[in-house]
């Protein structure tokens, strides 16, 4: 009797083990192919599948299979996979997560890999390299680069009798144009701002702060530096439009602004190239961000690059993953991907190849300005594991000013105090 009982338990345990995929992890061989997690859909999905097929035809022993994972959810999924020892060989990871991802022991150090002959690491934009590097260690290879510029509705500008913005324009001009473009009767706004208080709220402002000549943190990343005249000037700009002129549509959902722009309800948007394909219904132009005359900031922008990260599943698989990524991000493949998706070129050599910008602009009007604007990426957000906390505090600060709840100077002072606290407790842990 007892034997029966035990075998029944053993059989069910086996069954459960099978379901939960218990086991010893992947053996150190490339048998079964490498697995890559990516979140491409639409045109990006097609272009990526094409490149993948090309690689797999040439490298039957190192086939790569892809698994779609929504980029927003990839980190929780990755963390769970790593804990269970079933991490993919390669994953697409947001750049803002890099300092945290660098703490995962299974993440492969690529510092020597990117120095191999033929890779030409310096061909990647400086903003990309900054975000792929954490404490001097390269943990990823750039997968995507973008930046912020001003997309404006040409029809609304003409109807209001305004000149379209030129490359030397200023924030005062932006504020004045936004005011003219605001027509309450038509429910038309001069501009819009995303106000969920998330990093999307924050990085839009960070570009203004840099243009006004300010910094987010001090050089050693130990104290807040944004409670400065530049910080005040940049917040005042936003407050004038949101509170005084009411020329700014505040979008807490982080998505409706694009629909409204495409419906001709918003005159100007500070946004990135990813939104352009969502504006088929309006005639739009793109201009670099305005500047603050009298400051040393000039015209700047901010970039949010993302990375391909390799996870250790044994030396053979790591080696195969490295050669695949170096191939994927080499100039010919990067050119193909940009031309078929409208994504900005991840390498300078792609941008400089003859006829590239014209071809891009034909596919997606206005994208050439974003490409040129890559040269205006002069700094990166602080690469700190505590940056998410800093970002949360800055998000609250910006939203409270935009909603008219707090005066800019008071908001800056209180946020600076909180950031200093977060940095102090973050470094001690």
């Amino acid at each position, binding site marked *: 009797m007892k034997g029966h009982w035990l075998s029944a338990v053993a059989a069910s345990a086996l069954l459960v083990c099978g379901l939960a995929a218990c086991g010893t992890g992947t053996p150190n061989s490339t048998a079964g192919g490498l697995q890559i997690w990516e979140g491409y859909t639409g045109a990006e999905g097609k272009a990526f599948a094409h490149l993948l097929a090309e690689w797999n035809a040439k490298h039957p022993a190192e086939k790569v299979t892809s698994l779609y994972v929504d980029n927003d959810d990839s980190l929780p999924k990755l963390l769970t996979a790593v804990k269970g020892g079933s991490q993919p060989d390669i994953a697409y990871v947001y750049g803002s997560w890099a300092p945290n991802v660098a703490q995962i022991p299974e993440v492969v150090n690529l510092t020597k890999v990117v120095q191999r002959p033929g890779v030409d690491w310096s061909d990647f934009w400086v903003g990309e390299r900054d975000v792929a590097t954490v404490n001097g260690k390269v943990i990823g290879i750039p997968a995507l680069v973008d930046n912020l510029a001003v997309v404006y509705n040409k029809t609304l500008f003409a109807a209001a009798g305004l000149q379209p913005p030129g490359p030397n324009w200023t924030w005062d001009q932006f504020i004045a144009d936004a005011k003219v473009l605001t027509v309450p009767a038509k429910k038309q*706004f001069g501009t819009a701002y995303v106000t969920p208080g998330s990093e999307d709220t924050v990085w839009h402002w960070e570009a203004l702060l840099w243009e006004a000549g300010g910094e987010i943190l001090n050089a050693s990343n130990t104290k807040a530096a944004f409670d400065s005249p530049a910080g005040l000037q940049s917040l005042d700009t936003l407050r004038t439009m949101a509170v005084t002129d009411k020329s700014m549509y505040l979008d807490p959902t982080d998505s409706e602004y694009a629909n409204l722009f495409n419906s001709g309800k918003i005159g100007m948007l500070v946004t990135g190239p990813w939104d352009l394909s969502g504006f088929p219904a309006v005639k739009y132009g793109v201009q670099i961000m305005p500047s603050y005359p009298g400051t040393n900031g000039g015209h700047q922008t901010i970039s949010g690059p993302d990375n391909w990260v390799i996870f250790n599943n044994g030396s053979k698989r790591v080696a195969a993953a490295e050669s695949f990524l170096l191939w994927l991000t080499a100039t010919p493949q990067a050119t193909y991907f940009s031309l078929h998706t409208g994504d900005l070129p991840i390498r300078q050599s792609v941008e400089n190849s003859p006829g590239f910008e014209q071809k891009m602009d034909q596919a997606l009007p206005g994208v050439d300005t974003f490409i040129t604007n890559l040269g205006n990426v002069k700094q990166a957000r602080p690469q700190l594991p505590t940056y998410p906390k800093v970002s*949360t505090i800055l998000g609250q600060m910006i939203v409270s000013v935009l909603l008219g709840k707090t005066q800019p100077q008071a908001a800056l002072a209180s946020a600076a105090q909180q950031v200093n606290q977060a940095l102090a407790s973050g470094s001690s842990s």
Partner: protein
Amino acid sequence: MAVRAVLERRAQPGRRRQPGRPARPKAREQAAGWAFVTPAVVLIMLFGVVPIVWSAVMSFQRNNLFSPNTPFVGLANYRQMLHDPVIAQAIGHTIVYTALFVPGTMLVGIFLAVAMNRKIRFISVYRTAAYATMAISTISEALVFIWLFDPSYGIVNYLFHLVGIPQQQFLSSTSEALYVIVIMTIWGWTGFAVVVYLAALQGIPQALTEAAAIDGAGRWATFRRITLPLLSPASLFLVVWLTINALQLFDEVYLSTQGGPLNSTTVLVYYLYQQAFGGANFNFGYASAIAYFLFVIIIVFTAIQFRVGRRLVHYRS
């Protein structure tokens, strides 16, 4: 006293089971029984008990899931709650939300259920329509409400304008956003409450309401004295179930306001998620501590509800 007569007839005891314990099953049967339940037990252990225990352990650690270094910090995560101003706000919002959502959903539910508990034309169409709110995904629900309550372009402000009420900021207002979410979720849960009440209403024997009518009770008195007490088991179920769900509000907040503006819609579960995954905080230790705090609140609430319910609920024998 027709009602009493009917009730007494129904209350007559049926056949009683013989007293005494049932015979113990033979060892062989016991083994077979274990063999049948083992797969389920192992699965529940694996996907239920293990995560529950693990998060309990994490609540005493500083753990970001990245780093293998997870020092034991004792009660530090729980103590942090005492000094966290946002969690105080989150608790307040959760209580206000629950206090409005639970009775709100039940009132709308009972009203619609009574209205639909009769034989009229197209009744099944109405009933399906009411339940549809339950079948619609939360995402579409949230998107529809975001547009309905859009300050500049929404139809609600348009209707307000027609009757001369000034334009409201709704989801962009720190004082109004939470109430929009209350309305949104009441709408979403109405179908559930309607189905539960409809089923309960149909279980009320007509003899009772007819008897009440013979006794001279009006419609309101019949509802108040006969229907409502007989619905009390369904009401208790709804109170408990809706409260548990209200305390765990997340989807609608995540989709419409992300806790904002300025934390005005941050509720406990959303804050917990924020601490764990949102905005890349990765404070898993603190998030686990909040989860356990919420767990205790839910247990206490449910215990109180059952205790109070025992006095107010009338079960028919």
